[in-house]
């Protein structure tokens, strides 16, 4: 499978998201514009202009109507996918590091950076699914993370909980209605930040990636660590593949150390692990900088990775990928 190389960004990628149908890819980079791409051929659909700082994060609502983005210009913005119109801008005192829609696209959360005396907050706003409607200014919920700043956050199934990953390596579960902290569990090594948090299809469990070189599969309900994937490099991102029981991990030597080492040593590869058996199954090379973000196509046909090198690589899986099965899995399948 020859990957499609999306060379639309001029700086390091920060996040990639597929829409629910798997036909569009949204990507953000530090170069101040969001790109939308056709997943099947890599043609650029358009860009969204408005941010005046590095863009850290993007998310698309379930109906592919709107996207939200968060940027270092201290704003969180909502855009019309079709027209590229900036529908709404929320201002914050610090940068917005992560945005995510809940499962029915009626709520949006944003994680703000801890800086200049401001603590890191998780902010929730209501979203009106109608593109033409006026969006509200009101923050219906603000969760202050005073212990350790939140780096990533997301909505659980039924929008019941907000799960956040922190800089100290722990993961918290908040009540999504009132913002109470329910649990805080140290899952990663102390003081290794959680760099990514991505959900399974039904949002009942999620995967976290961390600089401690491991990724963990955790339940949303009680933050129980189900699986641990050990790699040999600091991880920036992790995704769960639908259809097949795999996870994709991306990382590599920290960007600042990269110039001192060879590409061979940088470990700039996407790694596939078996979700249940925790074994490494394969690697995909290509980037010549660390992988900042990986995303799996919700339809299970492919995945995309974005690197410090400024490229997005979109891969379609071959037949071999779908055929691959462990003996015990095949046994089970035959029995059913």
């Amino acid at each position, binding site marked *: 499978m020859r990957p499609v190389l999306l060379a639309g960004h001029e700086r390091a990628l920060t996040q990639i998201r597929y829409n629910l149908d798997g036909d569009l890819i949204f990507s953000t980079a530090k170069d101040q514009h969001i790109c939308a791409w056709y997943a099947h051929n890599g043609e650029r659909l358009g860009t969204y202009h408005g941010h005046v700082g590095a863009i850290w994060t993007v998310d698309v609502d379930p109906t592919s109507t709107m996207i939200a983005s968060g940027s270092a210009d201290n704003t969180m913005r909502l855009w019309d996918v079709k027209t590229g119109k900036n529908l709404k801008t929320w201002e914050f005192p610090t940068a917005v590091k992560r945005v995510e829609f809940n499962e*029915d696209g009626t709520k949006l959360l944003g994680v703000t950076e801890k800086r200049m005396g401001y603590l890191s907050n998780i902010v929730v706003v209501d979203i009106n699914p109608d593109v033409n409607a006026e969006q509200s200014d009101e923050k219906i919920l603000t969760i202050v993370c005073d212990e350790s700043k939140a780096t990533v956050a997301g909505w659980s199934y039924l929008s019941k909980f907000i799960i956040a990953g922190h800089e100290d390596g722990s993961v918290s579960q908040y009540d999504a209605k009132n913002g109470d902290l329910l649990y805080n569990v140290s899952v990663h090594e102390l003081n290794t930040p959680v760099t990514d948090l991505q959900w399974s299809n039904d949002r009942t469990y999620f995967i976290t990636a961390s600089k401690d070189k491991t990724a963990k599969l955790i339940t949303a309900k009680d933050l129980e660590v189900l699986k641990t994937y050990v790699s040999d490099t600091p991880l920036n991102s992790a995704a769960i593949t639908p259809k097949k029981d795999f996870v994709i991990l991306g990382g590599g030597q920290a960007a600042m150390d990269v110039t001192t080492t060879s590409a061979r040593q940088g470990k700039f590869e996407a790694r596939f692990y078996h979700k249940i*058996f925790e074994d490494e199954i394969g690697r995909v090379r290509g980037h010549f900088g660390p992988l900042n973000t990986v995303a799996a196509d919700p339809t299970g046909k492919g995945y995309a990775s974005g690197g410090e090198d400024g490229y997005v690589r979109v891969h379609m899986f071959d037949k071999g990928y779908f055929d691959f099965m462990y*003996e015990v899995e095949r046994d089970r399948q035959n029995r059913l």
Partner: protein
Amino acid sequence: MAPSFDHLREADLDDDDYDEEEIDISDLREKYEVQLEQGYDAFVVIDGLPEVNEEQKPKLVKFLLKKLNQVGKTREDLIFMPMGEDGKSLRFAFVEYSSPAEAANAVRQLDQVPLDKKHTLRVNKLTDIDRYGREGRVNEEYSPPHIDEFQPNEHLRWWLKDPSGRGRDQFIMYRGDSVGVFWNNEKEQPEIVVDRMHWTESFVQWSPLGTYLTSVHAQGVQLWGGPSWSRQRRFAHPFVNLISFSPNEKYLVTWSARPIAIPEEGHPALTIDDDGKNYVVWDIETSKPLRSFASLDTPGAAGAGAGADATPQKPRKSPWPAFKWSADDKYVARLNQGSSLSIYELPRMNLLDKTSIKIDGVMDFDWAPVTVQRDGVKSYEQLFCFWTPEIGSNPARVGLMTIPSKEVVRTLNLFNVSDVKLHWQSEGAFLCAKVDRHSKSKKSMATTLEIFRVKEKGVPVEVLDTIKDTVINFAWEPKGDRFVIITTTEPVGPTAVAPKTSVAFYCPEKSKGPAPGNWKHLRTLDKRNSNSIYWSPRGRFVVIATVHNQQSSDLDFFDLDFEGEKPESDKDLTANLQLMNTGDHYGVTDVEWDPSGRFVATYSSAWKHAMENGYHIYDFKGEALREEPMEKFKQFLWRPRPPTLLTKEEQKQIRKNLREYSKVFELEDAERGASADREVVEARRRQLDEWCAWRAAIEEELLEERAFLGLPEDPLAVLLATKTPEVPDDAEEQIIEEIVEEVIEESEEIVP
């Protein structure tokens, strides 16, 4: 010089009829009395003297004075020998030295020294007598010394009997801050024996027979062993840098770049004599120091051979080991480059025949690795070889000397020599001198290999054809008679890209007699990057590797007794070369064969570079068994084994029945493999079942919750349905094709 009191006394010493009372020295005495008050550190008490009366006393004093003045300065009038009421001496005396250091010296050197047959001196510091001997300090009642009950020591060779019965070998891994010992499990995770954090401060080392694990600390060296890995010995050499064992683990040499400084309050093991020394030779059995040495000044540019060859040399690093041991631990020798060789006899560490062996210009030497039995020589001897460069019109020499007779048994004169490297074969049967020669103009270099057949009568020397290129590496086959060399056309320097090298194999011709035939070139492999040769300790197999190289890291596994078809051209040679396998271990810095010759470990050490540190294990055929990258991986060392206790006949018997044994072992291996596989499959099945059960439960829970909240089963379907109402269900699927034409290049050519 004006006559002084000191001179007077010494001059008068021999005068027998001298009476102390005649001279008025009260003024002087007064002066010294004052000193007395100041401190008693310069005083010693001498006990164990013979009983004398007033008449005999001066004689005894004079006699005593001779001894006392050997270690410091004292005078007759500073010896006070109290007399009893019966006119007889009380058999002890007080002596004042000119300084406390001398007094301390006297205590150290004169205590327990026999005065005559009946009397032995006991010397103590006066302050000590005061400290320990004062009333009340000594218990009046005798209590027998406490003798610890006999505690059997741990078995130090326990590891030879692998508890799993598979005869595995152990190895050390030093990574990060922890040192661990493991059983080699081939493909599987090594089985941990012991793992300790901060076990050593700089490096670890096995003793040559594998008995002890050596850890190195700022305070000294520690040896560990036995099944509990308890501390067996301690050698307190402060700031020790390097250590080397004698071949039979009887002695240990430690070296520190920093000279030993004995603190005021003394040192637990070393004495004031060791102050300022760099080397200490220890007896391992008693963990006592035998003797210490200072570092020799390395000869600089003014060295013996420097006048002749004007090539500027880099300052030589002090060679290690500086002390080389004979094969039986009986002698240890140190080279004083350019002039002599000092051989010390163990266990007393005295200089052999009390003098160093003068060898003009001697550059290097090496003991035979085993005690060689030469043809026609019955008496005990240890051999070593040495070489000297050309000095003036004298030729360069490679010599073979026998100890203890110090006889040179063979010399070889050579001309136009720029360097010689000496290589003993592991059994001491051959010695190869790799001689780098320059042409008259000194512009081109060539190498010859001069091979001494040490065990044959008269030690014949065979010269191999001149090799045009520079030989950068040479290695004998252990317990064999073949060797491998690596040559390069360009001189090895600090160039960015290492020059291409050639690997050449040599073996003897077939011969009828017991001695091997002439050495012949077997094969040369050109255009390689290889720079190191690692023979299996059992011979036959050899790994040719490229280490410390950024670009390549090849490992080539050769068999020299390949059992397949032999090329016609090699039919007279005693080897059949076959490349069995090649491997690649990026960034490899070290290669280590296990002592049984079954496995090869290659590792990349964080000491050399920080790239892809970790180790690989191959079997002797070059099949990769295991690789494990590990951060901050520093050392991988197989535990050596002592020589086998089986007799030659027993070994032969085993070899004969190898097939029987291997059947059993293969069966065991297969069973173990199968059970391991079964376990893995079982574990996976369990994991899969657990996962599916969990999924089923959570899905059901989710549905229930949705139903309870009155939400649709699939929220997304509903959302999408409301979003796309205008598409009727029966609408035909359309395929929209778009053809984009793109002009890549346009060019115009005018055809005339």
